[in-house]
């Protein structure tokens, strides 16, 4: 059995001559909760759509549950739950009719769970989808995706438009799902605290490349930020490999370095700073540093 539920091999995508994805390689093992991050228009939705076979790649191949994305069979689709960005539901249908359509087309349908979700979210079954608020559409989309008991759940910015309570409910649902063995989740989000809470692996897209692809804890351990104070003016020629960001002001340098190790520590000490303080970094800080426009592409973390 293929243990990588999601695979992308050298995926390149151009839109009107503009390169959106530039050689993306991605592997998500079974049971992983993968948080895909990136700024607006960084290609998160595009890679998700390519994975699902909704968008053809310009070059490269992608696989979901061992099957090539461009030719996913109905049986494979039946094992995947998908919440699209903007919640592409059929607007002129009533909630009940759409739910029945999904139920009739699905291979597995958990009626009790769907009813539980619609009651939790208080979704009106007799109202047209076009008349629902964005938040309600998000909840309905999530309920439909979860009711099929998916082996792989792909969520493209699922909490967009949800209020704090609904977001918390969604996270709890996701955590419940994670509790079930063998479930894999790929999700993109702009709310980094959500990602930090549930993801165990992180990918960051910037400039069309996957600049970060590693476990969340590993990412936090390997990206370090230091404040260095020198006895006289800060050296202009302070050089280390994989510097993500460097800000010099008088005697002070604030430096962010990827793949921090003992060798880099020794190298830094040769510049003889009078003090070296490590600054704590949240996922949000790391994300901001890694997606700066002037940052050179990092080696895979």
């Amino acid at each position: 059995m293929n243990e990588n539920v999601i695979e992308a091999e050298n995926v390149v995508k151009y839109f009107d001559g503009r390169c959106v994805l530039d050689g993306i390689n991605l592997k998500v093992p079974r049971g992983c909760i993968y948080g895909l991050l990136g700024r607006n228009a960084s290609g998160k939705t595009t890679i998700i759509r390519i994975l699902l076979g909704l968008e053809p790649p310009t070059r490269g191949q992608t696989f979901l549950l061992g099957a090539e994305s461009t030719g996913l069979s109905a049986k494979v689709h039946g094992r995947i739950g998908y919440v699209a960005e903007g919640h592409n539901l059929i607007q002129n249908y009533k909630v009940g009719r759409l739910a029945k359509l999904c139920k009739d087309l699905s291979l597995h349908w958990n009626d009790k769970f769907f009813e539980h979700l619609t009651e939790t979210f208080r979704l009106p079954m007799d109202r047209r989808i076009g008349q629902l608020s964005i938040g309600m559409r998000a909840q309905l989309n999530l309920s439909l995706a979860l009711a099929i008991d998916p082996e792989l759940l792909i969520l493209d910015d699922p909490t967009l438009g949800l209020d704090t309570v609904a977001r918390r409910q969604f996270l709890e649902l996701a955590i419940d799902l994670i509790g079930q063995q063998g479930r894999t989740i790929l999700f993109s989000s702009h709310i980094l605290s959500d990602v930090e809470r549930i993801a165990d692996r992180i990918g960051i897209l910037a400039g069309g490349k996957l600049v970060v692809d590693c476990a969340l804890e590993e990412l936090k351990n390997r990206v370090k930020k230091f404040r260095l104070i020198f006895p006289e003016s800060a050296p202009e020629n302070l050089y280390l490999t994989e510097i993500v960001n460097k800000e010099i002001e008088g005697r002070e340098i604030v430096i962010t370095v990827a793949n921090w190790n003992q060798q880099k520590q020794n190298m830094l000490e040769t510049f003889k700073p009078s003090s070296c303080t490590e600054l704590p970094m949240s996922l949000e800080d790391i994300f901001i540093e890694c997606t700066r426009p002037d940052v050179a592409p990092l080696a895979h973390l």
Partner: protein
Amino acid sequence: MFTLIKREIEDHIAYFLGAAVLSSTLVVLSIWAAYNYGPEEAPLYPIGLSIPVIVILVIGSPALGASQMYTDRNRKVSAFLSALPVTRGRILVARIITGILAILTVLAPLAITALFLWHLLVPPIPIYPCPIFDIFVTALLMAFACYCLGLLTGWASSKVTPTLAGLALTFVLIPLIMVKGFGLHTAVILVLFIIASLIRTWQKFMSTAL
């Protein structure tokens, strides 16, 4: 597949209701004409009946095809369905079957009525064969060819060129039937046209981003 066909019919129920009303009206009219004008003019009924039917089908069937594809594109129906255990191929096949069913809703009752009246009113003369089968097949193929054009037009992002091309081809098809008549030659040409249109629609539908 049945669910997909049912969904297509429900979404385009107006076309089916229109087809049923049209078909019923024409059936009643043809029975009324047959009993009022007697058996002398009976051989002319199928031909007389086929002209308005063909004109209506030439307008109605591409409208249905274009409407199915345009609604899909506009409301992102296939994008939603593709996330379910449904392949694009099945969505298109269900759509095409729905189109054929709509055409048959008009043609089948008319063909049955015409056949019934023919056998009832026209004396069995061996040198004058029953034209109803030929008319039915040609009308069905022509309506389906126009429907396929509608599918192609409705899926294209640019509407002007395919619409003009569709209109031009429709105006070629009507004189073709008038010149060649109802029969094998016309059927072969229409079948070739249908295959070409379907291949192009299939290729576009399967490869376009949803």
